[in-house]
């Protein structure tokens, strides 16, 4: 039954993904002109000779003279059949090779932030709710509000600034200058670790704040429920009761938050890595967007959207597993 459900959901994803890819293609085509026109203008302003044959060559190669829908079909066909995402004009490399260089770091940072978000938010939410109005609770409520009202870029700026004042070191980038071009080694990893932790913490903080609030509210709600009193009336120990009933009930819906936490983290990663100029997709895509390097920008958008869709699917499946009330295919009540 579970397998059937997963298969059904996967089939439903196909039209959604097609629609997503079309929408993304339209968005990246929105700016007037294309990369070639920008490129020509750049060459002209710098006083260089524009090589007409090269232009014609590039136009042909990418079908830029064809109608839009043909360009789209061509792009999609190459992605599906050859994993060829197109070419980045700006970097003069295939998008795939750029993705290979930078996407793993982006995804690992996002996923690690997800882990950190949960690892902090769920225990803190539980303690806040079970010790409502305690000092701990007030502290984290305050923290929650600050975390939610401080934009990620500001948090990145502020923490870099404060660390600079304290240690005299500028913690931008993933490695200090000495290690940037060095091959991966233990020393490089040690050098990277504090920076990595800083980045993950900054990205996770706003999502964590939101999640603590939702976990706390959810658990407070569950603690009032009749079944908690029933269990207490049975003589179950308070701690066991807490874990078996209300906490489990409050954690269940958190599972389904991957669908909105993940996109938030991906967006946060993009902003924070742009501010801290990390060697991840963030700064690359920002430049690609401003310079109309459409295949690079489009491919990134496509990949993170697919990741989001898969994340939502996974959380739906997890929720169906942990909550027996959800019949595969819909909520029964």
């Amino acid at each position, binding site marked *: 039954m579970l397998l059937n459900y997963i298969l059904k959901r996967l089939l439903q994803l196909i039209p*959604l993904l097609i*629609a*997503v890819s079309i*929408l*993304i293609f339209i*968005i*990246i085509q*929105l*700016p*007037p002109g294309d990369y070639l026109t920008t490129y020509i203008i750049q060459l002209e302003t710098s006083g260089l000779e524009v090589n007409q044959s090269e232009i014609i060559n590039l136009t042909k190669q990418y079908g830029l003279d064809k109608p839009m829908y043909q360009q789209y079909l061509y792009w999609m066909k190459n992605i599906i059949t050859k994993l060829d995402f197109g070419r980045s004009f700006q970097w003069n490399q295939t998008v795939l090779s750029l993705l290979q260089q930078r996407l793993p770091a982006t995804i690992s940072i996002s996923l690690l932030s997800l882990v950190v978000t949960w690892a902090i938010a769920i225990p803190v939410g539980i303690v806040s709710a079970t010790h409502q109005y305690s000092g701990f609770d007030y502290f984290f409520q305050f923290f929650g*509000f*600050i975390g*939610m*009202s*401080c*934009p*990620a*870029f*500001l948090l990145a*700026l*502020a923490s*870099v*600034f404060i660390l*600079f*004042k304290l240690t005299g070191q*500028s913690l*931008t980038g993933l490695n200090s200058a000495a290690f940037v071009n060095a091959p991966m080694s233990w020393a490089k990893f040690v050098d990277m670790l504090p920076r990595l932790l800083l980045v993950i913490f900054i990205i996770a903080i706003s999502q964590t704040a939101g999640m603590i609030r939702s976990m706390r509210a959810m658990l407070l709600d569950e603690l009032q429920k009749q079944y908690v009193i029933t269990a207490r009336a049975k003589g179950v120990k308070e701690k066991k009761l807490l874990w078996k009933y209300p906490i489990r009930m409050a954690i269940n819906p958190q599972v389904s938050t991957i*669908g*909105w936490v*993940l*996109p*938030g983290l*991906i*967006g*946060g990663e*993009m*902003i924070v890595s*742009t*501010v801290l100029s990390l060697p991840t997709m963030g700064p690359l*895509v*920002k430049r690609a*967007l*401003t310079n109309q390097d459409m295949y690079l*920008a489009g491919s*990134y*958008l496509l990949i*993170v*959207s697919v990741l*989001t*869709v898969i994340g*939502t699917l996974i959380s739906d499946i997890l929720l169906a597993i942990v909550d027996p009330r959800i019949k595969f295919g819909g909520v029964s009540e």
Partner: protein
Amino acid sequence: MSDKKKKSNANIDTVDSSSSYEVASQYKLMWWKFKKHKAAMIAVPVLIIMYLICMCCEFFAPALPLERYKDYKDTAPTRIHLWDDDGNFVGPFVYGLERYTDPYTFRKSYVESDQIIKLGFFVRGSEYGVFGSNLKWDVHFFGVKLPEGEEPGGHNVFFLMGTDSLGRDVFSRILSGGRISLSFCLVSVAFTVIIGLTLGGLSGYLGGVVDTIVQRAIDLIMSIPGIPMWMALAAALPSTMSNLKKYFLMSLIMSLIGWTGLARVTRGKLLSLREEDFVIAARMCGSSHMRVIFKHMLPSFLSYIIVSVTGSIPGTILGETTLSFLGLGLQAPTVSWGTLLQDCQTVDSMAATPWLMFPALFIIVSVLCFCFMGDGLRDAADPYK
């Protein structure tokens, strides 16, 4: 008998007044509940003051946002004194500034001179058009008291939060930026309400094909991460576009992505209300569709709409400042809190001129206030809980 009746009436009166909780109107209950949220009760006046000041920013700011004090670049915030060096009370004043070059590092900075510049309220300053009109006025809420006949922009200067690298008063720019940033979120939320209510309402009320289309559209938008999508759409705005146009288009972009939440709430509420007994009763009494919607359904989910809308304001402010900071949204010379923060993108600039980070404080305070207000409204929306 009549005596007894009187007595019972009197008793009913006392019952009513003692259990007023049970007979108070919904809005009264909401207000009571909202009043209990202390943070929200502080946040609302703070927001009102912020909006008022930013709305009349030319009056409240001592200088104009684009006015350059060429001799005072990168000056630190001026200290306000009340007593002079000899301990005599003078009233609020600042010392004049003298340029000082460090003999070893050649770094330029400013030191206080002996010159006393008095500060005052409702002082004469640079001329501005009232609310952008042609009506000129030169009175500012506070600033330096210029000696008779002296033009503003000279050496009688006072910078509450310092100046930037072009010699512009940061505080004045923050107020002016607040006008953009604080109004931006309202414009964007207005677009969101229009789109979200219409589509959510149609989807919930009509059902059928319309519902399916709107639901699929929501799925589609929700599956693309918001921030990259904002950035992509913002980057698509041509750089030649006028600032006003850009301002409205940016807020439209925000709401194009943000309407889904409101549409979902509206649809869900409409669907559940459609089945409620009081709505069915109203329909059976022969009320028209319009009457059912506006008289019976709207009041019962209005509070949820307000909560949902208020809840989306902080995200909009954060989004706008983030995009502007990254140079993808509103761009200089438009002043917004995000564009102001562009000046401190590197550690070096932050270390040299930390006062350029002041706009951040305003972002945090305003978002915090909207969060508190949203929280209070959320509590109030369900007064019977």
